[in-house]
């Protein structure tokens, strides 16, 4: 079973994968509670624009993806605060717009190939040392911010206006959250892929919510599910030569279904 760790690429993939499981589930808790679930999907597609630019222009795709995802997150947050009624439409427009843009850029660059495919669905084979470095450094920074402001973010998720009247800087923290989420999503597309990362953010928390426990325990259960899914998913992906992202997502969905059924009243 443990022979897979003899390969350096698997070691790299596991470091990156575990880091992403932690990041995605913790940020995902706030995303789900704030009803921002669709946002993770949209940002994943925006990150793809960054990947496309990186691939075509020859920059590190992950770095450009982080940059573009942050810009997109700010744009969404700005538009949401301006056109509050149609915020889901805004997400939908930016999602399809980003995907279209990414495809055009890659086509023009003539590199519509395996390399892009791995960013769409995730690939454990392709995690480089540089990727691990990027994921760990940006990821640690994001995690620090999330933990630092977790009580404030929890309060805001519960009731934005009451949080504001208690003196919490709601606007600033909302921007901070979407920025951190943008970074995490961009980092995750190496392992999980941009079409599937939304699932790793949203489903562990959705599953944890079924247990109807307090905030801290919900976050811990969500974290546990994400880690289990990534470890199992990557192992299965290695032994059966399946795409890692898709395997991880199917496992996390199974955990969700089990949680749902076993907690049914």
């Amino acid at each position, binding site marked *: 079973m443990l022979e897979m760790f003899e390969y350096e690429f698997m070691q790299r993939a596991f470091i990156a994968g575990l880091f992403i499981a932690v990041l995605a589930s913790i940020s995902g808790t706030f995303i789900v509670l704030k009803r921002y679930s669709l946002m993770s999907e949209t940002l994943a597609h925006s990150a793809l624009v960054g990947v496309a630019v990186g691939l075509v222009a020859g920059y590190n795709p992950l770095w450009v993806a982080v940059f573009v995802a942050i810009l997109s997150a700010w744009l969404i947050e700005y538009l949401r605060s301006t056109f509050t009624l149609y915020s889901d439409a805004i997400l939908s427009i930016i999602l399809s717009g980003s995907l279209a843009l990414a495809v055009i850029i890659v086509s023009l660059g003539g590199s519509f190939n395996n390399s892009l495919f791995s960013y769409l669905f995730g690939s454990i084979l392709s995690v480089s040392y540089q990727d691990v470095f990027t994921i760990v450094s940006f990821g640690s920074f994001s995690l620090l911010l999330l933990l630092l402001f977790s009580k404030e973010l*929890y309060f805001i998720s519960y*009731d934005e206006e009451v949080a504001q*009247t*208690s*003196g919490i800087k709601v606007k600033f923290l909302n921007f901070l959250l979407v920025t951190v989420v943008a970074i995490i999503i961009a980092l995750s597309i190496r392992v999980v892929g941009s079409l599937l990362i939304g699932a790793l953010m949203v489903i562990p928390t959705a599953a944890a919510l079924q247990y109807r426990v307090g*905030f801290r325990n919900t976050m811990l259960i969500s974290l546990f599910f994400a880690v289990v899914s990534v470890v199992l998913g990557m192992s299965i992906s290695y032994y059966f030569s399946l795409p890692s992202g898709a395997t991880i997502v199917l496992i996390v969905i199974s955990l969700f279904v089990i949680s749902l059924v076993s907690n049914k009243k």
Partner: protein
Amino acid sequence: MQISYKVPIFDVKNLSFSVRGQKILSQISLEIFHGEYIAIIGPNGGGKTTLVRMLLGLELPTTGEVRLFGKRLKEFKEWSKIGFVPQRASHVDANFPATVEDIVKMGRVAKRGLFSTFSKKDSQMVHDAMQKMDIVHLKDKMVGTLSGGQRQRAMIARALASSPEILILDEPNTGVDTLSQQRFYKLLSKLNKEEKITIVFITHDIGVIADDIGRLFTINQKATICNDPKKALSCEDMSELYGIDAHLIHNHKHEH
């Protein structure tokens, strides 16, 4: 309790609010002083909630000004002095992952400096607030499973945890049974008399107004201030405020 007339907690001058040309509130001027117990009543759609939202800076007035502890809203920083329990508190999402203690702890979040965790003092304040609202035994229960009355007390405990000087409650009795309501009014009086917390609460139901109220503001686009609430319930302002309903409510009062 002793009312201090030095600096008003809220000083509202000529406040008006319109949405797309429609006047919601017009020319409201009022002051709320430390130690007062005030009820704001008026029909649904009369602008009560809008007034409160402007008092708290959640909505900007079209004209006029709100001062909090003598400061303009923009310059006001000491938000922990104000405890706000919004109307929708009674219908919190049943699945929101929060125990009663999680909710009450939120009241300490803004008080805590950046980079610091909850201190012993915070835990003590959270415990005290739950004790005042008699919900210590519920602290590990999920908010989604509470009764209306229990939930209401949890929300107030959250507001109390920041040791506010004033408590503002918007329609606090939505979804709460009569027995819990009576208990609730007793708690409010106690907070006002013993903890010296200024109380402002909003309701559309003038039948339930407690006896201890110091002043009554009626809001229906305009504000009328009654300094003797017992008289107010039978005064002509009521029929102006509620139209035909005032008659019914008036009779209802006599039955008791």
